């Protein structure tokens, strides 16, 4: 499964994205996020920011949701285009 980070989140993590082999523990977005938080204190700090936006397969999700193998998940800060 593909996990992407953008803008300030990407910079804070010093990581643009990860390719994670699927495991049943990733079947919920919250569980995947917790897995990422366990990569280190910085990861937990960055991914626990209140205003972080989560998107699954190009759609923003407001709460945890079911994930399946092959999904693309993204974490990013509030958008500032236009």
């Amino acid at each position: 499964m593909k996990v992407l980070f953008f803008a300030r989140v990407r910079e804070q993590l010093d990581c643009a994205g990860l390719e994670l082999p699927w495991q049943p523990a990733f079947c919920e977005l919250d569980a995947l996020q917790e897995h990422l938080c366990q990569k280190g204190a910085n990861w937990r700090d960055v991914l626990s920011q209140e205003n972080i936006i989560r998107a699954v397969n190009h759609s923003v999700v407001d709460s945890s949701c079911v994930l399946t193998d092959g999904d693309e998940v993204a974490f990013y800060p509030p958008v500032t285009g236009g």
Partner: protein
Amino acid sequence: MQGKRFQVSVQQADFDVSALQRALMQDNHEEGAIASFTGYVRASNARRDLHTMELEHYPGMTENSIRDILAQASGRWPLLNAGVVHRVGALRPGEQIVWVGVASAHREAAFGACEFVMDYLKTRAPFWKRELGEEGAVWVDARESDTERAKRWLEIDE
């Protein structure tokens, strides 16, 4: 309006507003109104050293979210055509950054849809601005006023 292919482009290159506007016109000339908006990179009062605005986006999702916003607009107003161009990469103050154009039979729909698309684009499409100046690079913070503007459309629905 179902199945209408809206023109959506995320690009580094500059764009020609009059050519984009002409492209909204159809052969049968049903359009009585085209409303368009062009956004520019503004020189910052707070950061006089600003020399470049860098725009990052989420390829794929950006285009999908703009298409979704245009589809929502066409569900609210009787649109004949619509298009969005948004630039990414390094831009300088004074350069064009975004264009939204909406064609309809009458002005009310054109004005309304154009404003709706911009309000939603600013708060939903995954673009991020970073200001580069003598004092370094700073990510632009999202503005509460933009969120409030976009929320007005939900209130209108109620």
